[in-house]
């Protein structure tokens, strides 16, 4: 029983990481109908920005929460800028072309960030400084949870709440929803569509950066290709929950994290990468628009 509880905690932690990355995917998709393949690599950049800023601020020596917050914010700011540049330079020129052209561009950007990152940061994995020292909190019966796991969970939920607030309760959020409904109609209503799309990218990239920092904090190994696998898994999580749907991304992430952990723990660890997709296929066959997605018949 204690093993099962521990596995469940592992699954929720893993799931909240997927959820955090999935949020950015789902937002960009909701607005642009673009699978932003570079999202996982922005997540990687977030971890590296934090790595360098932590060294700059000396956040690993006598760590305190204020320093950790500065590191987190600077990584988010850095990735926000990167996201803005990517959208401006690569995605905007192809926005009016087919969605596939945009997809290939996204793949190009992803490869560029990975290979450019390797040249800039080096190929060897780096140790991410412990800006918040690990503390284990025993829950009894041999079950433990770490303070870092709790931080990941609370920050993910907090960011999700903030995001939901922005999307549902602000003017910009309303504009975002309008743009996701129809670019043309939104433009006719006087919404600056370009600005809203830029804003979405900046927001999505900042979320990816936060995910990168939090994961690096918990699993302190960062390298230029670290975003590939979590990127794909998070995208699957977003689809699982119903892509374009914010609570769906979080639910999808959690379901996937827990499913993976249970398969590893009780079935066969080598089937881990397959289970995400098996689950996805089963759910999509039952609910073609994902767990929380609305089923809209596409005409085009």
């Amino acid at each position, binding site marked *: 029983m204690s093993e099962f509880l521990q596995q469940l905690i592992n699954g929720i932690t893993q799931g909240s990481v997927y959820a955090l990355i999935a949020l950015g995917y789902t937002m960009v*998709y909701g607005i642009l*109908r673009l*699978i932003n393949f570079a999202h996982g690599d922005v997540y990687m950049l977030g971890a590296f920005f934090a790595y360098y800023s932590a060294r700059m601020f000396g956040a690993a020596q006598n760590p305190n929460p204020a320093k950790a917050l500065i590191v987190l914010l600077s990584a988010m700011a850095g990735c926000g800028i990167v996201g803005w540049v990517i959208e401006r330079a*690569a995605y905007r*020129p*192809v926005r009016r*072309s*087919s969605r*596939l*052209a945009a*997809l*290939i*561009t996204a*793949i*190009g*950007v*992803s*490869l*560029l960030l*990975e*290979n*450019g990152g*390797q*040249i800039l940061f080096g190929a060897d994995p780096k140790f991410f400084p412990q800006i918040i020292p690990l503390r284990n909190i025993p829950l009894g019966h041999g079950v433990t949870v770490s303070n870092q796991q709790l931080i990941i969970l609370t920050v993910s939920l907090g960011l999700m709440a903030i995001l939901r607030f922005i999307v549902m309760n602000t003017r910009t959020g309303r504009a975002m929803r309008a743009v996701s409904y129809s670019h043309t109609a939104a433009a006719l209503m006087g919404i600056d569509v370009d600005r809203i799309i830029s804003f979405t990218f900046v927001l999505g990239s900042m979320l990816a950066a936060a995910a990168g920092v939090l994961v690096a904090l918990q699993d302190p190994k960062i390298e230029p290709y670290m975003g590939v696998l979590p990127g*794909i898994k998070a*995208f*699957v999580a977003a*689809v699982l929950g119903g*892509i374009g749907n914010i609570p769906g991304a979080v639910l999808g992430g959690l379901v996937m994290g827990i499913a993976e952990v249970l398969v590893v723990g009780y079935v*066969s660890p*080598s*089937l881990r*990468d*397959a289970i*995400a*997709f*098996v689950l*996805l*296929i089963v759910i*999509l*066959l039952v609910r*073609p*628009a*994902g767990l929380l997605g609305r089923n809209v018949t*596409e*005409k*085009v």
Partner: protein
Amino acid sequence: MRRTVWALALLAVIGVVSTVLPRLVNPYIMQVAVLCGINVILAVSLNLINGFTGQFSIGHAGFMAVGAYGAAMFTLQLGQRWAGAMMAAGLPPVVAQGAALCVALAVGGLLAALAGYLVGLPSLRLRGDYLAIVTLGFGEIIRVLILNIDAIGGARGLFGIPVWVNLFWVAVGAVGVVLLSLHLATSTHGRALFAIRDDEVAAEALGVDTTRYKVLAFVLGSFFAGIAGGLFAHFIGYLNPSSFQFLKSIEVIAMVVLGGMGSVSGAVFAAILLTVLPEVLRPVKDYRMVLYSLMLIILMITRPQGLMGSREISWGWLRGRRRAPGAA
């Protein structure tokens, strides 16, 4: 009659070219040429699914893997013995191995087609990006399964596959899939596929059996991907699941989109371009993949409709009359 003559003439040309070429260029270039040919088959076959029918599949590496492992296992279990027996019976090695290879390729292709049929089924229910992610999932599941089956090598890979493939076989395969695609494009069946791509609801209303045609596109596309896999296996002589990762599917997608969705000649050119480009970029060392990805982005920005759009190269096109058989 006329067709047979054309086919024989074409075979003869391929035969002559692929015997003369190795004497002129070094084996490295022959190797790149063969890989070009394999990628042409992959790109043109994916074009049947993505370009012709508009079904967004990003799991092509999975079908290729099924074909590669299927063909290789056949050869290792039976084909090699058959070829040996045929040679013992006095047939020249080229003929004996060629015959065994053809059977192996057919086995690989059919297995891949079966996988394509299974993947094609959900396409009846899923659209667009949802279908894309399911095909991606199938590709990954296939890879993980291969990794976990010890009898076909698992992580160690599959050794000792006889190297029977040379430029001739790859060229025959590539020309075959290209001709078949072009033929399909101008046939009733092809028109049905285009109709599904352009407007599925309208196609259904006009009496096109969309279910049948969508599955047909998947089965046909994956059959040829399986052939490409079988050729790959018998060319490299060693298979490892890491050759069939998600990134391989992405490479093939890039070829189709860069060539121009639905354009067979575009897919051919893009496949050759994207195979040769990384080789030409070798002198820049570590910056190679950076340049490659930059060029991919720039190409997509400057020619988002792909190199060929949805046109085909034809005599008429070369003379300046532009017709668009695929885009009607």
